[in-house]
């Protein structure tokens, strides 16, 4: 593979791949390593891929496999189950999401447990359809759809919880009266 072709692929996909890796590993250093490793595998094997339209799915599939391989080898990236409080939380609104910081939303996403995290990350960070998600995660399309629906519930519950916590920390200033 020529350097030019390699650089084009890197330019097109390194950002969404990094964000996907960050959501899985929850560590910037590990996310960078996973992203680099994925491109090096692409450099050595990606030339065998005949269909350019499949490059994106190939890269995300490879990164996910590398992540799972690292988890198996090192027992790292252990996900901690969070207490489930979804049903008691108020619904969130689009404006509220827009007012939040990107980092807060990413933190909420990363707090979603598996098996819902990877489909959600592929949906929001990778821009994949549920069919592509099913292929990348090697699950039936119905399963991908179901995990997306449940994952979205969990993500919104965490966003709602985060918003409540933030609001609780804000103490209104005393009003100043004119005159």
């Amino acid at each position, binding site marked *: 593979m020529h350097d030019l072709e390699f650089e084009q692929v890197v330019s097109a996909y390194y950002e969404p791949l990094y964000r996907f890796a960050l959501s899985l590993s929850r560590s910037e250093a590990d996310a960078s390593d996973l992203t680099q490793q994925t491109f090096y595998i692409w450099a050595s094997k990606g030339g065998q891929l005949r269909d350019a339209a499949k490059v994106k799915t190939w890269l995300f599939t490879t990164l996910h496999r590398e992540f799972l391989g690292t988890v198996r080898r090192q027992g790292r990236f252990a996900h901690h189950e969070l207490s489930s409080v979804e049903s008691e939380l108020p619904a969130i609104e689009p*404006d509220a999401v*827009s007012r939040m910081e990107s980092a807060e939303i990413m933190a909420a996403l990363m707090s979603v447990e598996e098996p819902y995290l990877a489909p959600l990350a592929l*949906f929001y960070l990778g821009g994949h359809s549920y069919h592509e998600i099913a292929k990348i995660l090697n699950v039936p399309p119905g399963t991908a759809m179901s995990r997306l*629906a449940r994952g979205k519930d969990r993500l919104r519950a965490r966003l709602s919880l985060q918003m409540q916590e933030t609001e609780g920390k804000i103490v209104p200033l005393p009003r100043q009266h004119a005159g």
Partner: protein
Amino acid sequence: MNNDEAKFILRARRPGGPDARDAAFAEALAHARRDPELATWFAEESAIDAALFAQLSAVPVPSDLKHAILIGRKVIKPQPWWRQSVSLPTAVAAVVATLLCIAFVGLREPREAALDFSRFNADLTDYVGSRYGLLFSPKLATANMGYLGAGGSELHYRSARVEDIRRWLTENSGHGACEFPARLKDHPSMGCGMLDWRGKRVSLVCFQVGTDLPKDKVYLVVIDSADLPDPPKGASPQFTTRGEWTSATWRNGDFVCLLLGYGNGETLARYF
């Protein structure tokens, strides 16, 4: 389909892209168009998704990540050809071609052909001239150090630094200890590789000596003098022209060196 079923399906839908043509969503969308409550829910759902997409696409990526990926790729060792998987038709074609070559060579050349120095010189000149001398894509003929020409994949390690090349050759049973021509060291190396010449180990180092690629490349080839029955004895280069290529050959201790380049002897003499 009731509203709960429609909501379940529509939550997996991405606006635009392949989902726009997916039949699985058509019925749920039609249901949403008929039911105002579901339509309101879906509009709200889509707005939250749009806000999430926008926010998450702003999550910062390390500023040096792209650079690190591109630089790192230059120092990874490509898979040797014998470890790369090939498709069945390619493998069959390769086997057939190999058998034909064996038959052809068997008919054309006597088995007892001497593996002497002149054979080595001619073989390597032909090999380098034919494998590395042709341009794959004129668009890539720039001063870019990463450009390797048609035979780029034959180079197992790439670096512009001669020290890196020496280290890699030494670590890979090559001829890293061989002294390179004095003036050649002023030019950036493009990479190196290990060849098998009739069962003998040969090191090959490619140098870029100008910007008119692939002509402005020269190749240093090194073999153990013990692997040749009649190695040259002199340390001064002797020039031989073969077609459009010239080789300079000399002895460097336990090594026999060939410098190969496009053009006549004057082209190569400037590196000594």
